[in-house]
Protein backbone atom coordinates (compact mmCIF):
# COMPACT_ATOMS: atom_id res chain seq x y z
CA UNK A 1 0.00 0.00 0.00
CA UNK A 2 1.31 3.47 -0.89
CA UNK A 3 0.27 7.10 -0.55
CA UNK A 4 -0.45 8.69 -3.91
CA UNK A 5 0.16 12.29 -4.84
CA UNK A 6 -3.59 12.82 -4.83
CA UNK A 7 -3.81 11.33 -1.35
CA UNK A 8 -1.15 13.79 -0.19
CA UNK A 9 -3.22 16.66 -1.61
CA UNK A 10 -6.31 15.21 0.09
CA UNK A 11 -4.47 15.17 3.43
CA UNK A 12 -3.51 18.83 3.13
CA UNK A 13 -7.06 19.78 2.19
CA UNK A 14 -8.53 17.68 4.97
CA UNK A 15 -6.23 19.33 7.50
CA UNK A 16 -7.17 22.78 6.21
CA UNK A 17 -10.81 21.83 6.88
CA UNK A 18 -9.99 20.48 10.34
CA UNK A 19 -8.23 23.75 11.17
CA UNK A 20 -11.17 25.79 9.92
CA UNK A 21 -13.48 23.80 12.20
CA UNK A 22 -11.09 23.97 15.19
CA UNK A 23 -9.91 27.55 14.71
CA UNK A 24 -11.72 28.97 17.73
CA UNK A 25 -10.83 25.97 19.85
CA UNK A 26 -7.12 26.39 19.13
CA UNK A 27 -7.35 30.12 19.77
CA UNK A 28 -9.04 29.50 23.12
CA UNK A 29 -6.29 27.11 24.14
CA UNK A 30 -3.78 29.80 23.15
CA UNK A 31 -5.68 32.51 25.05
CA UNK A 32 -5.22 30.55 28.27
CA UNK A 33 -1.43 30.31 28.12
CA UNK A 34 -0.43 32.36 25.09
CA UNK A 35 -1.70 35.23 23.00
CA UNK A 36 -4.95 33.95 21.49
CA UNK A 37 -3.81 33.60 17.91
CA UNK A 38 -2.82 29.99 17.20
CA UNK A 39 -6.14 29.13 15.53
CA UNK A 40 -6.13 32.30 13.44
CA UNK A 41 -2.49 31.78 12.49
CA UNK A 42 -2.98 28.20 11.32
CA UNK A 43 -6.18 29.06 9.51
CA UNK A 44 -4.58 31.98 7.66
CA UNK A 45 -1.70 29.71 6.65
CA UNK A 46 -3.75 26.78 5.42
CA UNK A 47 -6.21 28.97 3.56
CA UNK A 48 -3.19 30.37 1.72
CA UNK A 49 -2.01 26.81 1.10
CA UNK A 50 -5.39 25.92 -0.43
CA UNK A 51 -5.04 28.80 -2.90
CA UNK A 52 -1.51 27.70 -3.73
CA UNK A 53 -2.17 23.97 -4.23
CA UNK A 54 -3.54 24.19 -7.80
CA UNK A 55 -0.28 25.79 -8.98
CA UNK A 56 1.65 22.63 -8.07
CA UNK A 57 -1.07 20.08 -8.87
CA UNK A 58 1.11 18.42 -11.54
CA UNK A 59 4.32 18.50 -9.53
CA UNK A 60 6.01 15.74 -7.50
CA UNK A 61 5.24 15.20 -3.83
CA UNK A 62 8.50 16.83 -2.75
CA UNK A 63 7.65 20.04 -4.59
CA UNK A 64 4.17 19.90 -3.20
CA UNK A 65 5.36 19.64 0.41
CA UNK A 66 7.98 22.34 -0.08
CA UNK A 67 5.35 24.66 -1.50
CA UNK A 68 3.14 24.01 1.48
CA UNK A 69 6.09 24.72 3.80
CA UNK A 70 7.13 27.91 2.03
CA UNK A 71 3.55 29.15 2.02
CA UNK A 72 3.25 28.53 5.75
CA UNK A 73 6.54 30.32 6.42
CA UNK A 74 5.37 33.39 4.52
CA UNK A 75 1.80 33.55 5.81
CA UNK A 76 1.56 32.13 9.34
CA UNK A 77 4.10 34.14 11.31
CA UNK A 78 4.48 33.64 15.06
CA UNK A 79 6.20 30.53 16.35
CA UNK A 80 3.95 28.19 14.40
CA UNK A 81 4.91 29.63 10.99
CA UNK A 82 8.60 28.76 11.00
CA UNK A 83 7.95 25.49 12.85
CA UNK A 84 5.21 24.04 10.66
CA UNK A 85 6.92 25.62 7.66
CA UNK A 86 10.12 23.78 8.48
CA UNK A 87 8.17 20.58 9.07
CA UNK A 88 6.71 20.63 5.57
CA UNK A 89 9.89 21.86 3.89
CA UNK A 90 11.70 18.91 5.47
CA UNK A 91 8.93 16.53 4.34
CA UNK A 92 9.56 17.96 0.89
CA UNK A 93 13.32 17.50 0.98
CA UNK A 94 12.83 13.89 2.00
CA UNK A 95 10.40 13.20 -0.84
CA UNK A 96 12.00 15.08 -3.73
CA UNK A 97 10.88 13.76 -7.11
CA UNK A 98 8.50 11.17 -5.70
CA UNK A 99 5.02 10.64 -7.13
CA UNK A 100 3.94 8.24 -4.44
CA UNK A 101 5.17 7.32 -0.98
CA UNK A 102 5.78 3.87 0.44
CA UNK A 103 5.44 3.30 4.14
CA UNK A 104 9.24 3.65 4.42
CA UNK A 105 9.16 6.88 2.43
CA UNK A 106 6.59 8.36 4.78
CA UNK A 107 8.54 7.25 7.81
CA UNK A 108 11.69 8.91 6.49
CA UNK A 109 9.75 12.04 5.62
CA UNK A 110 8.05 12.24 9.01
CA UNK A 111 11.40 11.74 10.72
CA UNK A 112 12.92 14.55 8.68
CA UNK A 113 9.96 16.80 9.45
CA UNK A 114 10.00 16.16 13.19
CA UNK A 115 13.77 16.60 13.34
CA UNK A 116 13.38 19.87 11.48
CA UNK A 117 10.97 21.17 14.08
CA UNK A 118 13.28 20.12 16.91
CA UNK A 119 16.31 21.69 15.25
CA UNK A 120 14.50 24.99 14.59
CA UNK A 121 12.67 25.34 17.91
CA UNK A 122 15.21 23.60 20.16
CA UNK A 123 12.42 22.28 22.34
CA UNK A 124 12.96 19.13 24.37
CA UNK A 125 10.29 16.57 25.12
CA UNK A 126 8.39 17.79 28.17
CA UNK A 127 8.79 21.49 27.33
CA UNK A 128 5.05 21.60 26.55
CA UNK A 129 5.19 22.22 22.80
CA UNK A 130 4.10 20.61 19.56
CA UNK A 131 7.20 18.45 19.88
CA UNK A 132 5.38 16.56 22.64
CA UNK A 133 2.84 15.36 20.08
CA UNK A 134 5.22 14.92 17.17
CA UNK A 135 7.98 12.86 18.77
CA UNK A 136 5.67 10.21 20.27
CA UNK A 137 3.84 10.04 16.93
CA UNK A 138 7.08 9.40 15.07
CA UNK A 139 8.07 6.80 17.64
CA UNK A 140 4.74 4.99 17.36
CA UNK A 141 4.90 4.96 13.58
CA UNK A 142 8.42 3.55 13.63
CA UNK A 143 7.44 0.91 16.19
CA UNK A 144 4.40 -0.14 14.19
CA UNK A 145 6.40 -0.33 11.03
CA UNK A 146 9.19 -2.29 12.77
CA UNK A 147 6.60 -4.84 13.87
CA UNK A 148 5.35 -5.05 10.28
CA UNK A 149 2.04 -3.35 10.84
CA UNK A 150 0.17 -2.20 7.75
CA UNK A 151 0.20 1.48 6.83
CA UNK A 152 -3.36 2.23 8.10
CA UNK A 153 -2.60 0.72 11.49
CA UNK A 154 0.72 2.54 11.74
CA UNK A 155 -0.92 5.86 10.89
CA UNK A 156 -3.56 5.20 13.48
CA UNK A 157 -0.91 4.38 16.09
CA UNK A 158 0.91 7.57 15.25
CA UNK A 159 -2.24 9.68 15.61
CA UNK A 160 -3.07 7.99 18.91
CA UNK A 161 0.42 8.59 20.23
CA UNK A 162 0.13 12.24 19.21
CA UNK A 163 -3.13 12.44 21.12
CA UNK A 164 -1.55 10.91 24.22
CA UNK A 165 1.35 13.32 23.88
CA UNK A 166 -1.00 16.24 23.53
CA UNK A 167 -3.02 15.22 26.59
CA UNK A 168 0.17 14.74 28.57
CA UNK A 169 1.12 18.40 28.09
CA UNK A 170 -1.77 19.60 30.27
CA UNK A 171 -0.21 19.32 33.75
CA UNK A 172 3.24 20.47 32.64
CA UNK A 173 4.91 23.82 33.24
CA UNK A 174 5.95 25.23 29.85
CA UNK A 175 9.64 25.77 29.22
CA UNK A 176 9.50 26.93 25.62
CA UNK A 177 7.37 29.36 23.65
CA UNK A 178 5.13 32.06 24.96
CA UNK A 179 3.52 29.84 27.61
CA UNK A 180 6.87 29.65 29.41
CA UNK A 181 6.44 33.29 30.53
CA UNK A 182 3.59 32.15 32.73
CA UNK A 183 5.78 29.88 34.81
CA UNK A 184 3.69 27.74 37.16
CA UNK A 185 0.49 29.29 35.83
CA UNK A 186 0.95 27.45 32.52
CA UNK A 187 0.20 24.15 34.27
CA UNK A 188 -3.33 22.83 33.86
CA UNK A 189 -3.73 23.86 30.22
CA UNK A 190 -3.27 21.77 27.08
CA UNK A 191 -0.68 23.12 24.66
CA UNK A 192 -2.23 24.62 21.51
CA UNK A 193 0.65 23.59 19.21
CA UNK A 194 0.59 20.00 20.47
CA UNK A 195 -3.13 20.07 19.76
CA UNK A 196 -2.74 21.22 16.16
CA UNK A 197 0.02 18.64 15.68
CA UNK A 198 -2.30 15.93 16.90
CA UNK A 199 -4.97 17.15 14.48
CA UNK A 200 -2.42 17.04 11.66
CA UNK A 201 -1.50 13.40 12.27
CA UNK A 202 -5.11 12.44 12.87
CA UNK A 203 -5.99 13.98 9.51
CA UNK A 204 -3.28 11.82 7.90
CA UNK A 205 -4.70 8.69 9.50
CA UNK A 206 -8.26 9.67 8.58
CA UNK A 207 -7.38 10.50 4.99
CA UNK A 208 -4.91 7.75 4.18
CA UNK A 209 -6.00 4.84 6.30
CA UNK A 210 -9.15 4.17 4.33
CA UNK A 211 -11.48 5.92 1.92
CA UNK A 212 -14.34 6.33 4.33
CA UNK A 213 -12.20 8.65 6.44
CA UNK A 214 -13.40 6.94 9.60
CA UNK A 215 -10.15 5.41 10.70
CA UNK A 216 -7.83 6.92 13.31
Amino acid at each position, binding site marked *: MTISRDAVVDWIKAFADVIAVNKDYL*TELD*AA*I*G*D*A*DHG*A*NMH*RGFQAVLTKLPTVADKDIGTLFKTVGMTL*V*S*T*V*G*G*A*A*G*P*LYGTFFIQLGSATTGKLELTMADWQAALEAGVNGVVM*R*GKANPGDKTMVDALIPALGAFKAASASNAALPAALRDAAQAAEQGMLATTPWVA*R*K*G*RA*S*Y*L*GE*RSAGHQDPGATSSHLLLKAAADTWADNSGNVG
Partner: protein
Amino acid sequence: MKKLINKPEDVVAEELQGIAQAHPDLVRVSMDGPFYIVRADAPVQGKVGVISGGGSGHEPMHGGFVGVGMLDAACPGAVFTSPTPDQMLEATKAVNGGAGVLHIVKNYTGDVLNFEMAADLARAEGITVEAVVIDDDVAVKDSLYTAGRRGVGATVLAEKITGAAAEQRRPLAEVAEICRQVNANGRSMGMALTSCTVPHAGKPTFELGENEMEIGIGIHGEPGRTRMPLKTAAEITELLATPILDDLPFKSGDEVLAFVNGMGGTPLIELYVVYNELAKICKGRGIKIARNLIGPYITSLEMAGCSITLLKLNDEFTRLWDAPVKTAGLRWGL
Protein backbone atom coordinates in the same frame (compact mmCIF):
# COMPACT_ATOMS: atom_id res chain seq x y z
CA MET B 1 -15.89 43.45 21.21
CA LYS B 2 -15.98 47.22 20.85
CA LYS B 3 -13.44 48.56 18.41
CA LEU B 4 -13.20 51.20 15.75
CA ILE B 5 -12.59 48.69 12.97
CA ASN B 6 -14.30 47.30 9.94
CA LYS B 7 -13.49 43.60 9.74
CA PRO B 8 -10.97 41.92 12.07
CA GLU B 9 -9.07 40.48 9.12
CA ASP B 10 -8.64 43.95 7.56
CA VAL B 11 -7.43 45.87 10.62
CA VAL B 12 -3.71 45.72 9.87
CA ALA B 13 -4.03 46.48 6.15
CA GLU B 14 -6.34 49.41 6.79
CA GLU B 15 -4.12 50.73 9.56
CA LEU B 16 -1.19 50.62 7.14
CA GLN B 17 -3.22 52.45 4.49
CA GLY B 18 -3.96 55.08 7.13
CA ILE B 19 -0.28 55.40 8.00
CA ALA B 20 0.68 55.60 4.32
CA GLN B 21 -1.71 58.47 3.74
CA ALA B 22 -0.93 60.26 7.00
CA HIS B 23 2.86 60.27 6.82
CA PRO B 24 4.14 60.24 3.21
CA ASP B 25 6.80 62.73 4.28
CA LEU B 26 8.22 60.18 6.74
CA VAL B 27 7.53 56.73 5.33
CA ARG B 28 6.54 54.60 2.38
CA VAL B 29 4.32 51.62 3.07
CA SER B 30 4.81 48.56 0.88
CA MET B 31 1.58 46.61 0.60
CA ASP B 32 1.76 44.96 -2.83
CA GLY B 33 3.99 42.15 -1.66
CA PRO B 34 4.88 41.39 1.95
CA PHE B 35 3.91 44.31 4.21
CA TYR B 36 6.57 46.66 5.50
CA ILE B 37 6.99 50.33 6.38
CA VAL B 38 10.17 51.98 5.24
CA ARG B 39 11.72 55.40 5.67
CA ALA B 40 10.72 57.68 2.79
CA ASP B 41 14.33 58.16 1.64
CA ALA B 42 15.49 54.53 2.02
CA PRO B 43 17.97 53.12 1.32
CA VAL B 44 20.32 55.72 2.76
CA GLN B 45 23.68 55.06 1.13
CA GLY B 46 26.49 54.27 3.53
CA LYS B 47 24.20 54.08 6.56
CA VAL B 48 23.49 50.91 8.50
CA GLY B 49 19.84 50.04 8.03
CA VAL B 50 18.08 49.41 11.34
CA ILE B 51 14.92 47.37 11.16
CA SER B 52 12.55 45.82 13.59
CA GLY B 53 9.19 44.17 13.46
CA GLY B 54 6.69 42.22 15.41
CA GLY B 55 3.00 41.62 15.71
CA SER B 56 0.68 44.57 15.24
CA GLY B 57 -1.29 45.95 18.16
CA HIS B 58 1.70 47.63 19.87
CA GLU B 59 1.40 50.96 18.06
CA PRO B 60 3.20 53.31 17.76
CA MET B 61 5.88 50.56 17.98
CA HIS B 62 7.36 49.69 15.48
CA GLY B 63 5.87 51.45 12.42
CA GLY B 64 5.55 54.76 14.27
CA PHE B 65 9.30 54.73 14.90
CA VAL B 66 10.33 54.61 11.25
CA GLY B 67 11.95 57.82 10.09
CA VAL B 68 15.06 59.90 10.50
CA GLY B 69 17.17 58.95 13.52
CA MET B 70 15.34 55.80 14.51
CA LEU B 71 14.20 52.79 12.43
CA ASP B 72 14.76 52.45 8.70
CA ALA B 73 11.96 49.92 8.39
CA ALA B 74 9.39 48.02 10.41
CA CYS B 75 7.61 44.76 9.58
CA PRO B 76 4.09 44.54 11.01
CA GLY B 77 2.68 41.08 11.52
CA ALA B 78 -0.94 40.20 12.14
CA VAL B 79 -2.18 41.40 15.54
CA PHE B 80 0.16 39.93 18.19
CA THR B 81 1.71 37.58 15.61
CA SER B 82 5.33 37.87 14.55
CA PRO B 83 5.72 38.88 10.91
CA THR B 84 7.09 36.42 8.38
CA PRO B 85 10.62 36.08 6.99
CA ASP B 86 9.67 37.39 3.56
CA GLN B 87 8.53 40.69 5.09
CA MET B 88 11.83 40.99 6.92
CA LEU B 89 13.79 40.00 3.83
CA GLU B 90 12.08 42.62 1.66
CA ALA B 91 12.52 45.28 4.35
CA THR B 92 16.18 44.32 4.71
CA LYS B 93 16.72 44.72 0.99
CA ALA B 94 14.85 48.02 0.95
CA VAL B 95 17.06 49.60 3.64
CA ASN B 96 20.38 48.15 2.60
CA GLY B 97 22.56 51.13 1.77
CA GLY B 98 25.72 49.04 1.53
CA ALA B 99 26.71 49.29 5.20
CA GLY B 100 24.77 46.27 6.38
CA VAL B 101 21.51 45.87 8.23
CA LEU B 102 20.75 45.41 11.93
CA HIS B 103 17.71 43.42 13.00
CA ILE B 104 16.34 44.41 16.40
CA VAL B 105 14.38 41.39 17.54
CA LYS B 106 12.18 41.11 20.61
CA ASN B 107 12.74 37.82 22.39
CA TYR B 108 9.68 35.80 21.46
CA THR B 109 10.02 32.40 19.86
CA GLY B 110 8.08 33.56 16.82
CA ASP B 111 10.04 36.77 16.32
CA VAL B 112 13.36 35.04 16.83
CA LEU B 113 12.63 32.15 14.47
CA ASN B 114 11.22 34.34 11.71
CA PHE B 115 14.06 36.87 11.95
CA GLU B 116 16.59 34.01 11.91
CA MET B 117 15.12 32.68 8.68
CA ALA B 118 15.06 36.18 7.21
CA ALA B 119 18.68 36.85 8.14
CA ASP B 120 19.68 33.57 6.47
CA LEU B 121 17.80 34.53 3.31
CA ALA B 122 19.30 38.05 3.29
CA ARG B 123 22.82 36.74 3.79
CA ALA B 124 22.22 34.36 0.92
CA GLU B 125 21.55 37.46 -1.17
CA GLY B 126 24.86 38.98 -0.08
CA ILE B 127 23.61 41.43 2.55
CA THR B 128 25.51 41.66 5.84
CA VAL B 129 23.01 41.22 8.65
CA GLU B 130 23.45 41.35 12.39
CA ALA B 131 20.70 40.66 14.88
CA VAL B 132 20.29 41.80 18.48
CA VAL B 133 17.67 40.15 20.65
CA ILE B 134 16.01 42.35 23.29
CA ASP B 135 15.05 40.56 26.51
CA ASP B 136 14.47 43.07 29.29
CA ASP B 137 11.36 41.79 31.09
CA VAL B 138 12.25 40.98 34.69
CA ALA B 139 8.80 39.46 35.25
CA VAL B 140 10.13 36.37 33.49
CA LYS B 141 12.75 34.24 35.20
CA ASP B 142 15.84 34.06 33.05
CA SER B 143 17.13 30.58 32.28
CA LEU B 144 19.16 28.76 29.68
CA TYR B 145 16.52 26.05 29.52
CA THR B 146 13.54 28.22 28.67
CA ALA B 147 12.61 30.78 26.02
CA GLY B 148 14.17 33.39 28.34
CA ARG B 149 12.92 36.87 29.05
CA ARG B 150 10.57 38.75 26.80
CA GLY B 151 11.51 41.90 24.91
CA VAL B 152 9.34 44.79 26.07
CA GLY B 153 9.91 48.46 26.92
CA ALA B 154 13.67 48.52 26.34
CA THR B 155 12.92 47.87 22.67
CA VAL B 156 11.70 51.46 22.22
CA LEU B 157 14.82 52.85 23.88
CA ALA B 158 17.08 50.51 21.89
CA GLU B 159 15.45 51.56 18.64
CA LYS B 160 15.93 55.26 19.41
CA ILE B 161 19.51 55.00 20.62
CA THR B 162 20.62 52.51 18.00
CA GLY B 163 18.89 54.51 15.27
CA ALA B 164 20.77 57.62 16.35
CA ALA B 165 24.07 55.74 16.20
CA ALA B 166 23.28 54.49 12.69
CA GLU B 167 22.31 58.01 11.66
CA GLN B 168 25.87 59.06 12.63
CA ARG B 169 27.15 56.58 10.04
CA ARG B 170 28.77 54.31 12.59
CA PRO B 171 29.68 50.85 11.27
CA LEU B 172 27.41 47.86 11.72
CA ALA B 173 29.48 46.20 14.44
CA GLU B 174 29.39 49.36 16.55
CA VAL B 175 25.71 49.99 16.00
CA ALA B 176 24.92 46.39 16.97
CA GLU B 177 27.12 46.66 20.06
CA ILE B 178 25.33 49.82 21.21
CA CYS B 179 22.03 48.03 20.78
CA ARG B 180 23.31 45.09 22.82
CA GLN B 181 24.52 47.48 25.51
CA VAL B 182 21.13 49.17 25.74
CA ASN B 183 19.56 45.78 26.21
CA ALA B 184 22.16 44.85 28.81
CA ASN B 185 21.42 48.02 30.79
CA GLY B 186 17.63 48.12 30.46
CA ARG B 187 15.03 46.36 32.60
CA SER B 188 11.24 46.43 32.47
CA MET B 189 8.11 45.13 34.11
CA GLY B 190 4.43 45.63 33.32
CA MET B 191 0.97 45.26 34.82
CA ALA B 192 -2.60 45.25 33.61
CA LEU B 193 -5.85 46.56 35.03
CA THR B 194 -7.83 45.02 32.17
CA SER B 195 -7.23 42.50 29.44
CA CYS B 196 -7.28 43.33 25.77
CA THR B 197 -9.29 41.76 22.97
CA VAL B 198 -7.52 40.40 19.90
CA PRO B 199 -9.80 41.43 16.99
CA HIS B 200 -10.03 37.98 15.40
CA ALA B 201 -10.56 36.34 18.82
CA GLY B 202 -13.45 38.70 19.55
CA LYS B 203 -13.31 38.41 23.34
CA PRO B 204 -10.86 39.39 26.08
CA THR B 205 -7.80 37.14 26.28
CA PHE B 206 -8.28 36.91 30.03
CA GLU B 207 -10.92 38.05 32.49
CA LEU B 208 -10.10 40.14 35.53
CA GLY B 209 -12.45 40.84 38.41
CA GLU B 210 -13.41 44.41 39.25
CA ASN B 211 -10.88 44.42 42.09
CA GLU B 212 -8.09 42.46 40.49
CA MET B 213 -4.97 43.24 38.54
CA GLU B 214 -2.28 41.20 36.80
CA ILE B 215 1.36 41.83 37.64
CA GLY B 216 4.14 40.81 35.29
CA ILE B 217 2.20 40.85 32.05
CA GLY B 218 3.74 41.00 28.62
CA ILE B 219 2.53 43.01 25.66
CA HIS B 220 0.37 40.40 23.96
CA GLY B 221 -2.51 40.15 26.38
CA GLU B 222 -0.83 37.12 27.88
CA PRO B 223 -1.73 36.70 31.55
CA GLY B 224 0.93 37.86 34.01
CA ARG B 225 2.90 36.07 36.67
CA THR B 226 0.44 36.76 39.47
CA ARG B 227 -3.05 38.03 39.92
CA MET B 228 -3.75 40.08 43.02
CA PRO B 229 -6.20 42.58 44.49
CA LEU B 230 -6.00 46.07 43.05
CA LYS B 231 -3.60 48.35 44.89
CA THR B 232 -2.75 52.05 44.92
CA ALA B 233 -0.49 53.66 42.34
CA ALA B 234 2.23 53.93 44.99
CA GLU B 235 2.07 50.22 45.78
CA ILE B 236 1.86 49.18 42.14
CA THR B 237 4.84 51.34 41.20
CA GLU B 238 6.78 49.76 44.05
CA LEU B 239 5.79 46.27 42.84
CA LEU B 240 7.13 47.03 39.38
CA ALA B 241 10.15 49.13 40.27
CA THR B 242 11.65 46.92 42.95
CA PRO B 243 12.34 43.85 40.80
CA ILE B 244 13.68 46.15 38.07
CA LEU B 245 16.00 48.01 40.41
CA ASP B 246 17.23 44.86 42.11
CA ASP B 247 17.81 42.93 38.91
CA LEU B 248 20.52 44.91 37.12
CA PRO B 249 21.07 46.10 39.90
CA PHE B 250 20.66 49.86 39.67
CA LYS B 251 22.77 51.54 42.32
CA SER B 252 22.98 54.81 44.18
CA GLY B 253 24.67 57.36 41.97
CA ASP B 254 23.38 55.81 38.73
CA GLU B 255 21.77 58.05 36.15
CA VAL B 256 18.80 56.49 34.44
CA LEU B 257 16.27 57.06 31.74
CA ALA B 258 12.84 56.34 33.28
CA PHE B 259 10.18 55.22 30.84
CA VAL B 260 6.59 55.00 32.10
CA ASN B 261 4.62 53.35 29.34
CA GLY B 262 0.86 53.17 28.90
CA MET B 263 -0.54 49.87 27.66
CA GLY B 264 -3.04 51.52 25.29
CA GLY B 265 -6.13 52.08 27.42
CA THR B 266 -4.58 54.03 30.30
CA PRO B 267 -4.75 57.81 30.12
CA LEU B 268 -1.77 60.10 30.53
CA ILE B 269 -3.04 61.52 33.83
CA GLU B 270 -2.49 58.12 35.47
CA LEU B 271 0.96 57.71 33.91
CA TYR B 272 2.07 60.97 35.50
CA VAL B 273 0.78 59.75 38.87
CA VAL B 274 2.91 56.62 38.40
CA TYR B 275 5.88 58.71 37.27
CA ASN B 276 5.55 60.75 40.44
CA GLU B 277 5.77 57.56 42.52
CA LEU B 278 8.68 56.26 40.48
CA ALA B 279 10.57 59.52 40.96
CA LYS B 280 10.15 59.14 44.73
CA ILE B 281 11.43 55.56 44.67
CA CYS B 282 14.47 56.44 42.57
CA LYS B 283 15.25 59.40 44.77
CA GLY B 284 15.00 57.17 47.82
CA ARG B 285 17.66 54.91 46.31
CA GLY B 286 19.94 57.74 45.27
CA ILE B 287 19.27 57.15 41.58
CA LYS B 288 18.99 60.18 39.34
CA ILE B 289 16.40 60.24 36.58
CA ALA B 290 18.26 62.19 33.92
CA ARG B 291 15.87 61.53 31.04
CA ASN B 292 12.31 60.29 30.83
CA LEU B 293 9.64 59.14 28.44
CA ILE B 294 5.98 59.04 29.49
CA GLY B 295 3.15 57.87 27.30
CA PRO B 296 1.79 54.94 25.29
CA TYR B 297 4.75 53.82 23.16
CA ILE B 298 4.65 50.02 23.32
CA THR B 299 1.06 49.03 23.79
CA SER B 300 -1.21 46.00 23.98
CA LEU B 301 -4.22 47.15 21.99
CA GLU B 302 -6.69 48.74 24.44
CA MET B 303 -5.28 47.13 27.58
CA ALA B 304 -5.36 49.37 30.66
CA GLY B 305 -2.16 49.25 32.64
CA CYS B 306 1.41 50.39 32.48
CA SER B 307 4.97 49.23 32.34
CA ILE B 308 8.11 50.74 33.73
CA THR B 309 11.49 50.57 32.04
CA LEU B 310 14.71 51.84 33.51
CA LEU B 311 17.82 52.22 31.41
CA LYS B 312 21.13 52.92 33.07
CA LEU B 313 22.60 55.83 31.16
CA ASN B 314 26.13 56.65 30.18
CA ASP B 315 27.26 59.74 28.27
CA GLU B 316 27.00 58.01 24.95
CA PHE B 317 23.45 56.75 25.56
CA THR B 318 22.37 60.20 26.71
CA ARG B 319 23.88 61.90 23.65
CA LEU B 320 22.27 59.37 21.32
CA TRP B 321 18.93 59.66 23.13
CA ASP B 322 19.04 63.46 22.75
CA ALA B 323 19.97 63.27 19.06
CA PRO B 324 17.27 64.48 16.66
CA VAL B 325 14.53 62.07 15.72
CA LYS B 326 11.65 62.53 13.30
CA THR B 327 9.09 59.76 13.30
CA ALA B 328 5.32 59.70 13.70
CA GLY B 329 5.65 58.35 17.23
CA LEU B 330 8.70 60.12 18.62
CA ARG B 331 10.02 63.45 17.48
CA TRP B 332 12.40 66.14 18.59
CA GLY B 333 15.09 68.36 17.20
CA LEU B 334 13.65 68.11 13.66
